[in-house]
């Protein structure tokens, strides 16, 4: 009984970590530009598939593959911002939403064209026996996923709080006009936010692929669940996204385990709709904040 429960909990934590990373990706672009980049899920897919390409197809060493994958995801983020977001004149919100959807379809099309429709997988980062906790099994890759997520969270925290570029990006989020007045290159910060969110997504994709496989059309569902994680904790808050991601991951794997595996996607969607309808500011945000923000 406990064994089964723990098993579901661990698999929930694993997928939850990836949802958290997607949610953080949403936050990074949202904070710098107030755009919700609905192509966020595609970055995760790019991470998984490019990692397969570099490590299994080109047989590059592990670390080189990781660097190449991160580089190519960052490049995609950069191209996306420079080619589609920056050239827009007088962008309105409706247009912004649709353009990120359009880019996500283009990316999906390119991925399908180059990788086909079949799922891809590569070996776990480290070989070795799984760890057993009172009967439940934790694969080593699970520890990698959670560890990498933790590392990303700490890394981003330090980046935004300590480095000059991180501080400049936060300044853009607070007030774009004021930021450009003190000499911050706002356009470059927007570009950087897309690159950074693409990299964070791709890292999640690289880590999860050995466990859950990766195929070209996983993007939209990952984006929806990551968005759910992000709004659960209040859009813009990374801590909230992490908690939200783990909650969704665990609920999803419990549903799949105890009720019916076909319903696991429905759980996240129902949570998403409930939060949007009842507490669009997020679960952990006070009533005053709720009244102040517009939706």
């Amino acid at each position, binding site marked *: 009984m406990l064994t089964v429960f723990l098993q579901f909990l661990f698999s929930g934590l694993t997928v939850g970590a990836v949802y958290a990373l997607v949610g953080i990706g949403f936050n990074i672009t949202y904070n710098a530009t107030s755009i*919700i980049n*609905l192509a966020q899920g595609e970055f995760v897919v790019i991470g998984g598939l490019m990692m397969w390409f570099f490590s299994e197809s080109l047989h590059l060493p592990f670390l080189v593959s990781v660097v190449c994958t991160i580089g190519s995801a960052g490049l995609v983020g950069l191209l996306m911002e420079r080619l*589609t977001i920056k*050239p*827009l004149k007088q962008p309105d*919100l*409706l*247009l912004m*939403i*649709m*353009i990120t*959807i*359009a*880019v*996500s*379809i*283009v*990316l*999906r*099309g*390119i991925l*399908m*064209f180059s990788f086909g429709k079949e799922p891809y997988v590569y070996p776990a980062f480290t070989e070795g026996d799984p760890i057993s906790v009172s009967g439940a099994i934790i694969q080593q890759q699970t520890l990698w996923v959670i560890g990498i997520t933790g590392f990303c969270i700490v890394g981003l925290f330090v980046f935004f709080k300590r480095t000059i570029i991180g501080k400049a990006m936060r300044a853009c989020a607070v007030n774009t006009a004021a930021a450009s007045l003190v000499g911050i290159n706002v356009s470059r910060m927007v570009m950087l936010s897309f690159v950074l969110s693409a990299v964070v997504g791709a890292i999640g994709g690289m880590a999860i692929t050995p466990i859950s496989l990766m195929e070209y059309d996983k993007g*939209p*569902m990952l984006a*929806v669940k990551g*968005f759910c994680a992000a*709004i659960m904790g209040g859009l813009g808050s990374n801590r909230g996204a992490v908690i939200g991601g783990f909650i969704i991951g665990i609920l999803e794997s419990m549903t799949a385990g105890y009720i*019916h595996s*076909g*319903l696991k*996607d*429905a759980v996240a*969607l*129902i949570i*998403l*709709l409930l939060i*949007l*309808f*009842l507490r*669009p500011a997020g679960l952990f945000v006070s009533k005053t904040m709720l009244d102040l923000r*517009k*939706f």
Partner: protein
Amino acid sequence: MKKGDSTAFVLFVFLIVLFPLLTESAYTLTVGIFSGMNALVAIGLCILMGYAGQVSLGQAGFYGIGAYVSSIVSLQIGISPVLSTVMAMIVAALAAVILAVPALRLKGHYLAVATLGFGEIIFIILNEWGPGGPSGFGDIPRFGLLGYTVHTASGYFYLIWGLVALVMFFSLNLLASLSGKALRAIHDSELASGAVGLNVARLKIKVFILSAVYASLAGSLYAHYVTFVSPSSFSLFYSILVLTMVIVGGITNVWGAIVGAIVITVLPELLRKFAELDVLVYGLILTLSLMFFRKGLVPIMIDQMRKIRRFAVAKR
């Protein structure tokens, strides 16, 4: 109906009557039939987005409700597909109310994701609980009334485009009426519309229901024409396809929805050789038209015609 629209409408009906007389090919007629079904969904989304300013990425959900409810009811109870289509429209309208009442308080991204979530939930329900699961079911009865069943391709063409014309007639009159003007006011400023006494929330819900009913009608027509349905026809991809139709045709003009639906339905037929590339092609069309032809085909054409007319007048 406005003056330009009534001229266009007469021309439109004329073209509908003429088209099956000009072509013998069943293939051309079939493409025409599918364009008509897509046009129905696109008209609804166009009114919702272009006139009421609300995004929806969940139209496939209503399209699926139309197809599944009507086929299941007509198969299980054995009533005429005409009646089951009407029943499906009522179900879709109820679903629209349930979604719209809480969702339309949301704006922009939040509304887009909420409707996307709704569409995906319907997709999961069809996959899990629909007859036949992911592989769908067949033997759905064809359309017929009073013992007469529509069998020929041209018969179906007239049925579907006749309904498109009917829907168009209704929509154009609606948009020219006071409600239409109120809708445009909401699009420009919700705050101002509220201040002059418009019931913004109620109007938005009404438009949402309208778009759901159109999509449901199209879904029922699809099911009773193809006589086979499976969930894959009602995925997120279809919602995005309809979005592309509306954007390509021109979001600010309902005629654009019809033009966009025809263009986007015919295009993959022309690009048969690149079957594997369809997702990429749609994505590129959507991206490029958003970036460079944001107005859409029909409004651009109207602008050009105005320019030519002005030029002719100036010369005289």
